[in-house]
């Protein structure tokens, strides 16, 4: 008896809940789900642009075929992946170091944190433009500096290796503070008594970091990495401003290639295929990553 009444009640409640959330669900459907589905459909279509907008000629796998055949796409995939792994790893290392220092600071911490957040709060296109002044081949300060050690000043954006490194430096400068702040929050949540017992047990600072701080930071680090990977994989503004993909196509990321194919070539099908596959890759990477870390989180019994 009471069971069914409870069932009716919860159904009623659920219905009210659905009713109340319906407007926002519809909105999400309209502005998020529909465009995603539409773009997936386009990626499987031969599309023509006509007076009536997009016109699907036929459904086909050719867009993906052309994409997998394209050496340019393969390079963009490798470049984006490699760039993401390297920059996120460096940002994580530097971010942890910065957070460890920040944690030890007293009254100055607030001010330093505010200062640190300036690069993070800057619009990437703007900071990218500033970096392009630094890297400028004629009057750039970085060009001048490296020129002190070489016969002729280097053309930083003129060779693949230096252009990619320069871009990574701009990226790391901008996003390390973000990692630092997240890690700092994690550090402050670690109970002090754990450190005290470690000290009593005679653990050195190195041992303390690897046996206590780092394991207890894992959930926090997982979040930081997740955010950063999502963002780094969508790399667009920096190559757009700094190199326009050059030299050759050596700094062309997947997002930039997708943009070019879609909006410069108006090649809708293959462009949608690039966008869809990029989203899928990030999604899978993040799912796999959270799987691994959820296990870790469970083991530490945090979160």
């Amino acid at each position, binding site marked *: 008896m009471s069971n069914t009444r409870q069932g009716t009640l919860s159904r009623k409640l659920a219905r009210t809940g659905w009713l109340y959330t319906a407007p926002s669900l519809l909105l999400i*459907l309209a502005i998020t789900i529909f465009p995603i589905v539409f773009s997936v459909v386009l990626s499987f279509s031969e599309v023509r*642009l006509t*007076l*009536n907008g997009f016109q699907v000629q036929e459904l086909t796998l050719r867009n993906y075929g052309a994409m997998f055949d394209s050496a340019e796409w393969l390079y963009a995939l490798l470049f984006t992946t490699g760039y993401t792994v390297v920059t996120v790893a460096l940002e994580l290392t530097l971010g942890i170091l910065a957070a460890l220092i920040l944690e030890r600071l007293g009254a100055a911490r607030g001010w330093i944190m505010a200062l640190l957040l300036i690069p993070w709060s800057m619009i990437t296109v703007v900071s990218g433009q500033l970096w392009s002044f630094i890297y400028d081949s004629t009057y750039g300060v970085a060009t001048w500096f490296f020129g002190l050690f070489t016969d002729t000043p280097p*053309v930083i954006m003129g060779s693949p290796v230096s252009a990619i490194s320069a871009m990574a430096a701009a990226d790391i400068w901008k996003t390390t503070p973000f990692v630092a702040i997240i890690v700092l929050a994690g550090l402050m949540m670690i109970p002090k008594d754990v450190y005290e017992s470690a000290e009593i047990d005679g653990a050195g600072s190195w041992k303390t970091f690897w046996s206590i701080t780092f394991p207890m930071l894992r959930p926090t680090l997982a979040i930081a990495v997740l955010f950063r990977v999502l963002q780094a994989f969508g790399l667009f503004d920096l190559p757009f401003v700094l190199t*326009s993909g050059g*030299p050759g196509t050596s700094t062309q990321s997947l997002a930039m290639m997708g943009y070019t194919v879609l909006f*410069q*070539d108006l090649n809708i099908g293959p462009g949608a295929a690039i966008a869809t596959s990029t989203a899928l890759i990030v999604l899978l990477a993040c799912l796999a990553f959270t799987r691994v870390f959820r296990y870790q989180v469970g083991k530490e019994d945090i979160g």
Partner: protein
Amino acid sequence: MASSRRSVLRAGLAGAAGLALAGCAGQTDPLAGKSTAVPTQPTTINWWVSRLPSHDGDLRPHLINAFRRRYPQIDVQIVRSPQDTNANRAALTAQILGGSSSPDVYEGDITWAAQFGHASLAMPLREVLPAGYWDAFPPALRSAASYGDELYFLPMYTDQGFLLYRKDLLAKHGLRVPGTWEELVRTSGRLIEAGEVRSGFAWQGASYEGLTADVTEFLADAGGAIVADGSAAFGSPASLRAIEFLHSLVTRGISPAAVSTYQEQDSMQAFLNGDVAFLRNWAYAYGSANEEGSGVAGRVGLSTRPGFDGMPQQANATLGGAGTYLNPHTRNLGAALAFARFIASPEGQRIFATKSDLLPAALGDTDTPSRTLEVASRATLIARPSSTPYYPQVSKAVYTNVNAVIAGARGVPDALGNAVEQIDDALAGAGI
């Protein structure tokens, strides 16, 4: 719950496909049922256009005012377009593809005709113009406006490549303006040796459309082309000669190593700084090099581009500039057409010639031509291979591969082979 989620997804997919397929049956002729007559009632049209620099600031009010003296009933509202060419193309595409009737007319790059015609982003204009209308304009411009047997823009202003040189340095060393590239290399060598400049010749070598424009000129100098008879001609001996020459400019120190990162403003800066003695640039350069505070004001000369020694066709210049396109969804066809035709008319073109450094599309009917106009009229205009709807891909194949050569990241034959493959894929509509 799971099954209902799936069905929502299925419905969404079907809806999306249905919506896209619904477009199949519909209008095909954007001119159908529209009058080309100039309206007699008060009408307002929207003109999507970038800022057009003039001697007194902005050329657009001059054009609109002159137009309204003839057609007081038509009001022209300016819609500011994005400065960047690709951002502009993306914005226009989104708006027109969505069926918007505004803007009625827009300024578009002259290389867009085939792509925009193919994608129904521009009104076909052959029918609405009298026979012989294009006789007053350069053949290269007509060919730029053509796609199939249609025409997709009306002339607005043009642009072309020039050679700027430091006349003070040439005079000081008793040197003349180089007539060939070989002479330019020798002259540059002497000026570098004398310590006058750090390198000789700046141009646009970055990975972008500007490099394709430069390459088009050098190919014409060597007797070649990017595309000939509908397929890539970029692997020809002429192409090899042209690209090897560009590469040698960097390896021999005639062009700065940084030329592989130069867009227009960077090459201009190198020239204004006095780092180089020669500059390839567009029509605006001569005026701005002589502006106050340029550092080389009054010491700059202008000429047509040199050619290769012994080649018949000299003074080649890539055609650039913009045309006036009509939105196929315009509800004011008559007024839009009247405005586009006014800009291309002798009266409209004279405003470009007298009030700005922009080159009029029809050269030759100005009484007192500026130095830029006078030199411009001596050049042979070369159109980029933009008569294919896949031109952006063709151009990208050119500029990415040639940029890799200039940056020293790739050998010439390798890069040309790669480019030819990509160009042929693009022309077949199979590129990505």
